[in-house]
């Protein structure tokens, strides 16, 4: 998986080129009518160790920008803001036993949802590519630097 990278102090934030992103630090991998959704490397770093993930149910309908679950770390609780609209086809149950997968492999085994897309043509207008998301996290990283440094 080819990625762009942004380095800040000792952290390297990876942004895979083949994914799409929203400004709430979620990614979507589009495979035809199906989207896999997760959180970015940047977000998992800022959140620190994730201890609990709450996911929606299979069959739930979601709109882009809806809350599609939540994650709790030792530092904060955050809602997952869906990057796409559709019907939840699958959820990653591995995250119940091992929520830290979202930290260790955010773009792979730490995926959150699979969504059967219903309106990707509209959704796409509100998504950004890797280059644009890299710029987003560069701005956020300076603000988050003190939070990152505090562990």
């Amino acid at each position, binding site marked *: 998986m080819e990625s*762009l*990278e*942004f*380095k800040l102090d*000792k952290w390297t934030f990876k942004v895979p080129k083949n994914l799409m992103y929203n400004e709430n630090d979620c990614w979507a991998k589009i495979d035809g009518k199906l989207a896999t959704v997760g959180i970015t490397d940047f977000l998992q770093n800022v959140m620190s160790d994730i201890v609990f993930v709450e996911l929606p149910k299979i069959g739930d309908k979601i709109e882009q920008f809806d809350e599609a679950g939540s994650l709790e770390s030792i530092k904060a609780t955050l809602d997952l803001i869906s990057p796409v609209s559709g019907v939840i086809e699958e959820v990653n149950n591995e995250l119940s036993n091992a929520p830290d997968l979202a930290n260790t492999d955010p773009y792979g085994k730490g995926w959150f949802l699979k969504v059967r897309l219903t309106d990707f043509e509209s959704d796409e207008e509100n998504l950004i590519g890797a280059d644009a998301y890299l710029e987003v996290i*560069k701005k956020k990283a300076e603000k988050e630097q*003190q939070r990152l*440094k505090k562990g």
Partner: protein
Amino acid sequence: MSEQKNKVAVAVCTGMDQPLATVARYAGYHVLEKLRPDTTVLLCTPALLGGVQEDIDFVKNNPALIIDGCEERCCEKIVKNSNGKIQGIINVKDVLKGHSDLQPESRVKLGPKGMKLAEIVGEIAAKRVDEILEAGKA
């Protein structure tokens, strides 16, 4: 693309055995969080041992300042083994010699004197950070 400015990697002994190791720990936090937050990065010594790549890479590519707790100099040895570029070493035991009234209470709780000693070590470390960065510009 990197947005890095010059920073000093501060590596602390993190030992469990001696009270002065706990002093070193709090001195490291004092430098990073209070005194030089913009010019230091805290290295996690156990992470170097555990093979955490971001710590290993950072210590190889940036000047390192060691804060060791005793004459065993474990942190110095660990950073050397990780190919770190050591530019400064502070030993808490040496600092204590000049401030013998500031004995920490215990390794679990430093107490006011131990915390004061940690602050003094932190201040010495902060000056050393400045010197390292200044030398790096020359």
